[in-house]
């Protein structure tokens, strides 16, 4: 039998497939479609210090082979998530990863501290694509120094492994990865969405009420693969890869490029069963291309 297991800091994944943060809520809805114990892990929706209502609607728009979203971190706040959502997910035999967001470094720290006391949460994903309100909206995720700072603080505030989620909206993804590596990150998740806009012709307004939104889906897969390749060549952290994954072959492409595991976001909307289907397909796909395990495929693309 094909070995699909992957061991990463804090995470024993029975297979390398998990939902991407924000595309799966806290799992309840998709648990109506299948048993969440099938998943390698669950990345929860972003948590902030207190409840956030998010952006006005429309919050999503369709694009060619992709979509824009500007949900705006709507979430019930870390306390309620720990009290009401984590226990639900903890019923399943899967690893729970908390996605941490904030508009100030203090907020990141506070959320990390609270999740640190939740034993069911095995690792953190640090969402640094949020604009820093204190610094006038500059994203933590596009400035290496700010990314370093927030990573350092969160590392100090908790014992759990920290995966920093990189934004693709940067000139130099390797510099971002190196900055958070220096700050002690245990891993990377990449990529978050690319900032985009669509204008609705009849109203002459941006279709997304927030004006810009994050582009996800198959359209961005080549950018994700390129960035993972670049980072893998120069940084030693494990990578959870994402961006446009729809099939088991896509998963293999990410593994070859250097991802140790993968997350599926937008594709859940098209097909709520996409993750169990991919997990089911993966052994055949690995075999077809001559691999004997997931581990065997990681980073095996030939670049010379």
């Amino acid at each position: 039998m094909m070995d699909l297991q992957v061991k990463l800091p804090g995470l024993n994944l029975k297979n390398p497939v998990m939902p991407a943060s924000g595309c799966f809520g806290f799992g309840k809805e998709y648990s109506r479609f299948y048993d969440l114990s099938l998943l390698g892990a669950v990345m929860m929706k972003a948590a902030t210090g207190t409840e956030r209502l998010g952006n006005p609607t429309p919050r999503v728009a369709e694009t060619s082979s992709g979509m824009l979203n500007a949900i705006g971190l709507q979430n019930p706040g870390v306390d309620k998530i720990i009290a009401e959502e984590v226990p639900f997910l903890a019923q399943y035999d899967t690893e729970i990863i908390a996605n941490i967001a904030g508009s100030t470094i203090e907020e990141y720290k506070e959320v990390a501290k609270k999740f640190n006391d939740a034993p069911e949460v095995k690792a953190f994903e640090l969402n640094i694509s949020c604009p820093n309100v204190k610094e006038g909206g500059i994203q933590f995720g596009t400035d290496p120094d700010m990314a370093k700072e927030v990573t350092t603080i969160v590392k100090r505030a908790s014992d759990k492994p920290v995966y920093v989620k990189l934004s693709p909206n940067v000139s130099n993804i390797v510099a971002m990865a190196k900055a958070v590596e220096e700050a002690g990150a245990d891993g990377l998740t990449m990529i978050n969405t690319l900032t985009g806009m669509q204008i609705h012709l009849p109203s002459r307004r941006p279709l997304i009420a927030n004006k810009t939104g994050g582009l996800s889906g198959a359209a961005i897969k080549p950018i994700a693969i390129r960035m993972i390749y670049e980072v893998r060549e120069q940084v030693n952290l494990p990578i959870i890869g994402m961006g446009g994954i729809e099939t088991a072959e896509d998963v293999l492409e990410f593994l070859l490029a250097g991802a140790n595991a993968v997350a599926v976001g937008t594709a859940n909307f098209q097909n709520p069963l996409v993750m169990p289907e991919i997990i089911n397909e993966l052994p055949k796909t690995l075999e077809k291309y001559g691999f004997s395990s997931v581990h065997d495929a990681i980073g095996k693309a030939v670049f010379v």
Partner: protein
Amino acid sequence: MRKVEMKLVYARQIAEDTIEMKLEDNYITQIAEPGQFIYIALPNFTLRRPISIADVDREQKQLTILFKIFGRGTASFAAYEPGMIVDCIGPNGNGFPFDTDKMEKVLLIGGGIGVPPLYYLGKKLKSKGIEVTSILGYQTAAQVFYEEEFNQLGETIVVTDDGSYGEKGYVTDIITDSFNFDLYYSCGPTGMLRALTSKLQDKKGYISLEERMGCGVGACAACVVSTKNEQGYLKICHDGPVFPAKEVIL
């Protein structure tokens, strides 16, 4: 709610850019309630399209949808031919609540492509002995559909914006004090719902809302609507699409 393959058994254009289809399956047709919707995947489109359930025949295992060709997705769907398989999630959301013991007369108010879900509701209510009056608003004569079907349910008034068919004006122009009803149900463009709920603010009513959706199942928080109470945002796909008229902020 499941992901199922439905078989398209019948398709017909019933008004300008308006298609009626019947879809067959063993699951959705057996449990769907008025006001719920199905969420349809179309090849090469990232997002599914939400379409209301306009009628259900449990014995024939068929449901009816009525949709308008609006953009590229509905245009490609309109080209489907009988025999083809349609990838659907459903039934999604919560339907129109009704307690037949507590009501005798209801008013249905539909605007354009908001008319469909009211048909199945009206049929259900009529079969339980409730008196149904319908006001159906369309832009123009060419877009009028299902007048005959609603006539079977009870008194039906058709209104067109340009007066090219039926009464001229908006549905809200028609609702006078002479209308006598316990409850109203409505679905239509947001502008219409806003005018209607303000006009009927003393009445109890339920309205069905539309919003652009991502997951369609309650997971992504794309399709929220503000509420007047401490619940904050509710999700149209999951908590709706039907809400008590007084609860939501349009």
